């Protein structure tokens, strides 16, 4: 393959449901992302290298059983996608912790939830979440992720594309039905186009993301 900068984006997916972890992993891999899944917010923070409190130092095995390389922060995470409703640390709590951390706050965070609660959605967006997806998440939803990851990829390359892509409006979930319909069209385009080559940033505009 090309240089490391040639971009495979790495997504950290957080969900306490084993079924949903399997699903989101497949969705993300189909979209050509590298994926790590964890089953809790505290494990997510561990993986991100944030050793905030004693809770994190547990007996339970960490994410990668015998691999401690990630503690040295060799692993770059380009986006965190997390379930909202989780026991212990909720997705919202995780979002807050990430945004409050000087080392992690630039990582885009996306929230997923099975419940369409407008106040929940606005709270998350206000706290800095880039997107709020209703479950079950679809392939077409994931096409919204790339612009957020491109924005924060190493600033020394692809800067021209990054600038073009920052003008991305936040979705309003009230119009979900309309979105679903246009998503159906997007989904077709997405599926036809999915291949490793798509991970290379393109020189033209936003339309190429779809």
């Amino acid at each position: 393959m090309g240089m490391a900068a040639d971009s495979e984006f790495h997504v950290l997916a957080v969900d306490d449901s084993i079924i949903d972890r399997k699903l989101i992993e497949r969705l993300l891999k189909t979209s050509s992302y590298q994926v790590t899944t964890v089953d809790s917010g505290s494990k997510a923070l561990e993986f991100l290298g944030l050793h905030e409190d004693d809770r994190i130092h547990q007996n339970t095995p960490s994410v990668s059983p015998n691999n401690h390389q990630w503690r040295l922060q060799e692993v770059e995470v380009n986006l965190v996608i997390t379930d909202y409703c989780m026991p212990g640390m909720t997705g919202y709590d995780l979002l807050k912790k990430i945004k409050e951390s000087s080392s992690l706050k630039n990582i885009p965070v996306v929230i997923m939830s099975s419940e369409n609660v407008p106040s929940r959605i606005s709270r998350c967006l206000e706290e800095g979440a880039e997107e709020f997806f209703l479950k079950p998440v679809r392939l077409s939803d994931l096409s919204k992720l790339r612009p957020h990851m491109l924005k924060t990829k190493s600033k020394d390359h692809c800067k021209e594309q990054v600038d073009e892509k920052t003008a991305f409006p936040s979705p309003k979930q009230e119009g979900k039905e309309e979105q679903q319909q246009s998503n159906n069209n997007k989904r077709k385009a997405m599926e036809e186009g999915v291949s490793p080559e798509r991970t290379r940033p393109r020189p033209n505009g936003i339309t190429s993301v779809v």
Partner: protein
Amino acid sequence: MDLVQLQRQLVEYRTSLYHEGFLDEQFTQLQELQDENNPDFVVEVVSLFFEDSERLLNELTKALEQQSIDFKRVDAHVHQLKGSSSSIGAQRVQKVCIAFRNYCEEQNVEGCLKCLQQVRHEYSLVKTKLESMFQLEQQILSAGGSIPM
């Protein structure tokens, strides 16, 4: 039965599962995520759903047998079951879970017990049907055919 007949039978069976509300669009999404590189994806996810649901049904039974029922706990389990059934497209199971959660909120024991019975029933139905469907798929593959979409 020859290959073409098997394939036709599968398509008819699958269509009926959608018509009868056992499966919804989300199940189609799962199938679309399966490909030559991940040929067992659907079976794997559905197997996880079976294991997880059985665990949850046992937890629910235990929780509702208690002298003093912890409705929050019951609701938490139903919420999980609702989520996982929704994720695989098991529509009828999901619908019962919605009613179940309402009874939890009302702290209605009888309602909860009825829903538990119903959800067990719906779960067992969809499990049987999915297993039959997977068997048909296996027969087709063993006969050298491909699974019609």
